[in-house]
């Protein structure tokens, strides 16, 4: 599902980080990334070679101010540096300085002000944009002014809303003043920086239509390890090392090919003509493994960033207004059985609430345990709530209204098409008649938030943050299940007002527990996004944060660089290059 550059308004920040932050000094929470590549099994990194990556769709505007689609967000992480570099370590989001990650502009940060509601960053000297212009604190201050400008209409506007001002104190010192102290201050100030000298003249309204974005290979000025070398619209993007970035990436070139068809992507992988293929479906994994018992490819996971749900709309069917009915519908489903049937055991885990296990600060397996499969219990609950099959037609009814509704999902998703059929059968056993309906995806994405559905199967992407208020606030357009509980809202408000995560997390857990009690959704499972990676590609780090986070550290052993290295001669003419 397309999304923003990763992240959310409130980032997860460990208590230890904040405790350390109070003391100032050179810091990076979560440890060093410098040796990541060297730790890779398979030898010492060497330079050279071309990596061929495969994506499902093309880039649009890979620039921090206007990036919107998920792939643009991935590219922004490769092309631009931020003050700190976000990373996912040990179940939490951490912020690395240049001492630990070359993608960070700042070598030092510290909380300042009486209530620590400001952060001062000290930037490295001698950094340059790819056109040779120096990177300065003015670029940072301008970028944040533009992110907040409604004419620019950045998708990250909400992230910067708590920022009162960003002041460039000199060329290499910049201070962020926040309206109040809150846990996401580092996250909000880690957004990649855009070059002021390139876009300022266009004005806020002209940035989106700036010529450099129409021809990124010629005009895009970047700060990261790679720049766009060539763009064949809809076909491929070639990234080449940015000479002003240090250290130089190991790879000579990265060619990202656009292949929308899953079978073709798989063939390219099996032919050895692609080395990193996104969008692998769960049912393709056994095929990949069976075709290659020697394991020349591995499956990497962006772990548990999504939860698949069954949503119930209480305003569309009276049965859904009763929490006992919603609970019964969940209990009637054998979720582990569904996961097994669809060969997802390795990549999906039954879900019991809105927080997946990757969010260690708020995930509570005891209080958010998945509902146990219990058909008899489900029947009892339905009987108790007055939904009984009095006329013996196999469908329960109450006050003359049958427990019959439409279960909606989007077309074109084979997994969901299978899941709704299993759900339909399992509900039928307890006297519930679900009629299946598939809608074109854009229509589905319109109808669910508009509450034009009775029950729906869909999924939400999990933010790397505990803030779930957007899904459960009474007046939020994304509260698609019409959840309403004053106490839960109070707890979420209090959590958002807390200055640190160690104080906010218990409130989030409490709110989640209240929500789970009501079962506005049936949480089915958390699932991974899969990427197939050829063995020749080393140093690759894929985790919940993303797949391109350390592209400059990827490397190919010299003996495997083959014809695709050096001059870049054709790499897709045969097998045996792995």
């Amino acid at each position, binding site marked *: 599902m397309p999304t923003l550059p990763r992240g959310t308004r409130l980032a997860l920040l460990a208590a230890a980080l904040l405790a350390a932050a109070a003391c100032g000094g050179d810091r990076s929470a979560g440890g060093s990334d410098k040796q990541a590549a060297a730790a890779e099994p398979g030898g010492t990194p060497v330079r050279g070679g071309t990596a061929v990556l495969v994506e499902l769709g093309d880039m649009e505007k890979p620039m921090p101010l206007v990036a919107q689609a998920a792939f643009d967000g991935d590219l922004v992480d490769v092309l631009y540096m931020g003050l700190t570099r976000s990373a996912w370590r040990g179940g939490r989001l951490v912020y690395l300085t240049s001492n630990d990650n070359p993608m960070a502009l700042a070598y030092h940060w510290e909380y300042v002000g009486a209530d620590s509601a400001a952060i001062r960053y000290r930037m490295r000297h001698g950094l340059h944009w790819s056109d040779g212009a120096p990177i300065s604190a003015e670029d940072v201050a301008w970028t944040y002014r533009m992110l907040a400008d409604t004419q620019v209409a950045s*998708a990250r506007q909400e992230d910067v809303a708590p920022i009162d001002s960003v002041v460039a104190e000199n060329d290499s010192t910049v201070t962020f003043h926040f309206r109040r102290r809150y846990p996401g201050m580092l996250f909000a100030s880690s957004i990649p920086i855009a070059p002021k000298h390139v876009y300022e003249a266009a004005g806020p309204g002209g940035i989106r239509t700036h010529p450099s974005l129409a021809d990124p290979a010629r005009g895009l000025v970047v700060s990261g390890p790679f720049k766009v070398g060539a763009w064949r619209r809809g076909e491929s993007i070639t990234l080449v090392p940015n000479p002003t970035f240090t250290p130089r990436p190991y790879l000579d070139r990265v060619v990202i090919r656009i292949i929308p068809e899953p079978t073709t992507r798989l063939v390219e992988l099996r032919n050895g003509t692609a080395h990193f293929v996104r969008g692998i479906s769960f049912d393709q994994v056994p095929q990949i493994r069976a075709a290659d018992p020697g394991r020349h490819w591995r499956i990497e996971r962006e772990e548990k960033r999504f939860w698949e749900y069954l949503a119930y709309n209480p305003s569309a069917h009276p049965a859904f207004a009763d929490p006992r009915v919603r609970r019964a519908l969940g209990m009637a489903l054998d979720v582990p059985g569904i996961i097994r049937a669809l060969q997802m055991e390795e990549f999906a885990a039954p879900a019991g609430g809105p927080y997946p296990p990757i969010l260690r600060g708020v995930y509570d397996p005891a209080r958010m345990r998945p509902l146990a499969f219990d058909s008899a219990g489900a029947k009892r609950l339905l009987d108790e709530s007055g939904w009984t099959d009095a006329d013996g037609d196999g469908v329960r009814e109450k006050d003359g209204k049958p427990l019959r509704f439409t279960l909606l999902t989007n077309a074109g998703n084979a997994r969901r098409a299978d899941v709704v059929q299993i759900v339909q059968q399992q509900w039928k056993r307890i006297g519930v008649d679900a009629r299946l309906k598939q809608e074109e995806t854009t229509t589905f994405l319109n109808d669910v938030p508009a509450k034009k559905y009775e029950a729906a199967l869909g999924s939400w992407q999990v*933010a790397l943050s505990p803030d779930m208020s957007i899904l459960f606030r009474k007046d939020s357009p994304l509260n698609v299940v019409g959840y309403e509980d004053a106490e839960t809202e109070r707890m979420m408000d209090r959590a958002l007002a807390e200055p640190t995560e160690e104080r906010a997390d218990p409130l989030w857990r409490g709110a989640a527990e209240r929500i789970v009690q009501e079962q506005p959704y049936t949480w089915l499972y958390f699932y991974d996004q899969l990427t197939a990676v050829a063995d020749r590609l080393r140093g690759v780090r894929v985790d919940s944060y993303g797949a391109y986070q350390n592209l400059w550290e990827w490397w190919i052993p010299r003996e495997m660089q083959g014809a695709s290295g050096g001059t870049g001669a054709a790499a897709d003419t045969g097998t045996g290059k792995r």
Partner: protein
Amino acid sequence: MVGYLIRRILGAIPLLLGILTIIFFIIHIAPGDPTARFVNPNVSPRVIEQMRHNLGLDQPLHIQYFKWLWSFIRGDFGYSFGQQQPISQILPGVLWNTLQLTLVALVMIFVVGMLIGIVQAVRQYSVADNVLSFGALFFYSMPSFWFALMLILVFSLKINQVIAMNPAMAPWLGWLQFPASGMTSVGYEFMGFGQKMGDRFKHIFLPALALGIGNAAGVARYMRGSMLEVIHQDFIRTARAKGLSERVVIFRHALRNALIPIITLLGLYLPFLLSGAVLVETIFGWPGMGRAIVDAILQRDYPMVMATSFVIAAMVVLGNLVSDVLYAVVDPRIRTE
């Protein structure tokens, strides 16, 4: 003839405007809008509203229509909501990509289709006729997406595997090995001219075959019927009676007359040249019009839908016109009328 052409072209203008107006309102009435793909918990609804405002989607539909119409009349197709680029920069590229593919496919369709049709007609009821009829029907009935996938599996995956297991067979089987997707290989820009031509051919062959074979089978059926009609006529008997060789009778006398309905067919294939083929382009990762149109519709990229619709509608009108003109050119009876 010139007056007739001008009348037809002028008549096409209100027709095109009518078509585009209907498409404009249909696509806007469809549920969802270009911001629907950003609906997820990481994007604030306020930001989505602002995107809608900036795209002008919060204005009344008739205002949006007149704004589009005014830009369109001035030759400005606008800005793609989906690809975030001016359409004037997107369209030439995708049109050229599609044209390369469809031109090769079109040549394949008519050359192969006509040759098969001629052989079938000349050898009516022979084994060759029956075998070719069966083959033509087989390919005509086959969905292009399935055929495309089979071509990839056989000529890319399986051949690759055979060569990997038996490298000694590479010289024999190498020419049957084709890439699974894309328009060129990685490293194309470093190739010499000859290599580039070979690489282009290798990449275009399978998609053109997938696109062309079913249509060629259709043309073969037309050609067979048309030829059969002609070769049983008196003037063909006269030609034979004059002692002309069979080759001259078939290719000079029969074929020219049998071509009339085929030429009409050629005109009707013109829209195909630029509309592309969604499934084949998607399967082979070919960035052409077919993919652009479907992506635009799925993303509710209204300006892109309107621009691509205009191209296709214009080609349909032009195709019909060309068809009529060609018909008059090859058939003096029509011209006289």
